[in-house]
C-alpha cells in the first residue's frame, strides 16, 4: 500500500531536533473493537502523514474510522474494548506504539494536542477557565499560580476572547459555544505543540461562528508552524483550510489528494457521489444525486471494496478484490502529485 504524498515538505526543525521527514506518519494502522456481537474492524490499514505547517483533512462519515484513527494517534483509545493488532505511528521518526506509558504521556499535550467537538463536555464545569488553562503551565512547567494565571490571560487574548482579564475567573457554562471552542483551542495551544488534532471542531457551532473559529485555527497554525489534522464530515469546511485531504470509508483511506483538485476531479466513486449529493447554495437543483444504501456495518464489512454495494460502477472484481490505494495519473500517464485512489476503476472515474 502506498503512503500518502509528501507534498509541501517543510523542515520540521522548530523544536531543534534533527529529525527530517514527516512530523507524524501513520503506517498500516489497524484498530478493532471487541463487542458482544463480534469484532468491529474500525480501522483497516490506514497510512497518512503530516508535516509541520501542513493541514491534513480526514474526511468521512460516522463509522468511517476517522476519529478512531485520531484517538489511536493521540493514545486515548479505550483499550479494551479497542485493540491495535497491527501498525506503526511515527512521531518525529519514533514509533509511539512502542513507547512506554510515561514517554507517551509526555508527548500527549506537550507535543500533540487535541481539540474536541463538544467543548462544554471537554471542560471541567466546576473549575474556572483560568484555572484549567493555567493547570497546563503549573503541571508541565512548574509555574506559580500567579504566573500561570497571567499566562492563561495571555492565551485567552491570543484566541481573541474579548476582555480576557475580566473573564479568566468565569466558569465554562458562562461562555457561549463559540467562546468555549476558543478556550479549547487555547488549551491545546498552551504548550505550543507540534501537532494539533481537531476532531469536528466546528460541527456544533453556528455557521457565522464556524467561520470565526476556523479562521482563528488557521491563523494560529500559520503563526506556530504546527501540523494540523482536521477530522470532519463537512466537505465545505475542508475546502477552506486544508492542504491535502484523505477520504475514509469503512476504516480505509479511499482517496487522497491536494485539496483543490479533489473537488474538480474526484478519483473515487464515493468522493464523487458525496460531492454530487450536496445541495449547492448558489444553484437551485433538481433531484439530488443520492448514494444509495447505507454506510457499512463494521462487524460485517462487505468483501472486496467496502463501497461496492453502494457503488454505481461496481463490477465482479469489486466484490472479490480489495483495491489498494494506487497513485492517480493523467490520461497520458503524467504523475498527479499527491493523488491516490483505492478504486479498481479510478481511471474511468477521473477521466470519464
Amino acid at each position, binding site marked *: 500500500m502506498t503512503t500518502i504524498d509528501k507534498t509541501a515538505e517543510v523542515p520540521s526543525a522548530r523544536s531543534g531536533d534533527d529529525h527530517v521527514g514527516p512530523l507524524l506518519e501513520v503506517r498500516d494502522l489497524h484498530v478493532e473493537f471487541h463487542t*458482544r456481537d463480534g469484532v468491529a474492524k474500525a480501522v483497516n490499514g490506514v497510512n497518512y502523514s503530516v508535516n509541520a505547517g501542513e493541514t491534513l483533512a480526514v474526511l468521512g462519515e460516522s463509522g468511517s474510522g476517522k476519529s478512531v484513527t485520531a484517538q489511536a494517534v493521540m493514545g486515548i483509545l479505550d483499550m479494551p474494548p479497542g485493540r491495535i493488532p497491527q501498525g506503526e505511528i511515527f512521531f518525529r521518526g519514533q514509533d509511539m506504539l512502542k513507547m512506554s506509558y510515561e514517554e507517551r504521556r509526555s508527548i500527549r499535550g506537550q507535543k500533540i494536542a487535541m481539540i474536541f467537538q463538544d467543548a462544554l463536555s471537554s471542560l471541567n464545569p466546576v473549575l474556572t477557565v483560568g484555572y484549567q488553562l493555567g493547570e497546563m503551565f503549573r503541571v508541565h512547567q512548574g509555574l506559580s499560580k500567579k504566573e500561570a494565571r497571567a499566562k492563561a490571560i495571555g492565551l485567552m487574548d491570543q484566541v481573541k476572547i474579548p476582555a480576557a482579564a475580566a473573564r479568566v475567573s468565569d466558569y465554562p457554562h458562562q461562555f457561549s459555544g463559540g467562546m468555549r471552542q476558543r478556550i479549547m483551542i487555547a488549551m491545546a495551544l498552551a504548550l505550543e505543540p507540534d501537532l494539533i488534532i481537531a476532531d469536528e471542531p466546528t460541527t456544533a457551532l453556528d455557521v457565522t461562528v464556524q467561520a470565526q473559529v476556523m479562521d482563528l485555527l488557521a491563523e494560529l497554525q500559520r503563526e506556530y508552524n504546527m501540523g494540523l489534522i482536521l477530522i470532519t464530515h463537512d466537505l465545505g469546511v475542508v475546502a477552506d483550510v486544508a492542504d491535502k485531504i484523505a477520504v475514509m470509508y469503512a476504516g480505509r483511506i479511499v482517496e487522497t489528494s491536494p485539496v483543490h483538485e479533489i473537488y474538480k476531479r474526484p478519483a473515487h466513486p464515493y468522493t464523487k457521489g458525496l460531492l454530487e449529493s450536496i445541495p449547492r447554495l448558489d444553484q437551485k437543483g433538481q433531484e439530488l444525486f443520492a448514494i444509495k444504501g447505507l454506510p457499512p456495518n463494521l462487524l460485517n464489512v462487505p468483501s472486496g471494496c467496502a463501497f461496492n454495494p453502494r457503488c454505481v460502477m461496481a463490477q465482479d472484481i469489486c466484490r472479490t478484490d480489495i483495491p489498494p490505494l494506487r497513485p492517480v495519473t493523467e490520461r497520458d500517464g503524467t504523475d498527479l502529485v499527491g493523488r491516490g485512489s483505492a478504486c479498481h476503476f479510478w481511471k474511468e472515474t477521473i477521466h470519464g
Partner: protein
Amino acid sequence: MPDLTKTAPVPDETKAPVADPSAVVKADKARSLWGDAWQDLRRNWYFVISAGLIVILLLITAFPGLFTSASPTTGDLVNHFLGKPELSKIGSPEWFGYDGQGRSVYARVIYGTRASVIVGVAVTLAVTLFGGLIGMLSGYFGGWIDALLSGFTNIFLGLPFLLGAMVVLQAFTDRSIWVVVFALAFLGWTQIARVMRGAVITIKQSDFVQAARALGASTPRILFRHILPNVMAPVIVVATISLGVYISAEATLSYLGLGLASPTVSWGMDISGGSAQIRVAQHILIYPSIMLSITVLAFIMLGEAVRNALDPKTR
C-alpha cells in the same frame, strides 16, 4: 385526500440486501432491548449465580418441607444446645447442630427463609407500586402536583428508616409478617419515588413523547405506553437491590426484638438468640447469619447484573 394505498412503491434505496449486512445476518429477528439484556445476562456469571441462589431460596420458601423433615418449633431437650453440628450429615436435622431449646438449627434456617423472602418481596412490591405511582405523577405533571408530592416524599425521606420502623412497630402488639411489611414499606417508598420521578422527567422531554402528544395521544396512553416502559429499567434495578436491604432490615428489627415474634421463625430472632450464647455455642449464631448474608448478597448481585445489562452506556 390522497390514498396511501394506491401509490406506486418507490424504488428502494435501502432494501438492497447487500447494503445492510446486518439485515442479512439477523434477518427478521426482532430484538427488543429486554431481549438484548437477556442475552447479556445469560453470559454474566454474577447473574447466573445470583439467579440460581434466588431460585433455591424461592423453592425453600414455597416448600420448606422438601428440605428438612425436622420441625423448627418443637425442640427436644435431649438435643442439648451443646450438641455440635455434624457437618457430614448433610440435610439431616443435626447438620447445623441444635439450639438451647433443642431445636434443629438447620430446620430453623430453612423455615426462617420464608419470613425473610416474604418480607423482602412484599415490601419491594408495595414500595414499587406506591413509590412508583407517586414518582410518576409527580414527575409527569410537574407544577403544584410535583411541589405537593415532592414535599410529601421529602418529609418521609427525613424520617430515619430503621428508627422510624421501630416506632411504628411499637404501636402494634401483634407483630405478624404483614405488620413488619407495613412498617418497612411505610418508610421505604421514598427512594423509588425519587428514582421514578427523575426518570419520568427525563423521558417526558424526549422527542418520542412529544411525537405522541403531537399525534393527539391521551395522557394515560402517554403515561402507560410511552413513559412507563422506558422508566422500568432503573426502577427494577433499585427495587432488586433494595429487596436485599429490606431483608436485612427485617432481620435487624427482629434481632432488636421489635420485628417478628415467636412462633414465626426468623433469622433475625435466631441471630439474636445465638448472640447470647456466642461463647459456648457459635453455631446457633453462625448459620442463620450465613444464610442472611447469602440471601442479601444474591439480591444485590442480581440488581447489579440487571443494571449492567440494561444500562446502554456499558454497551
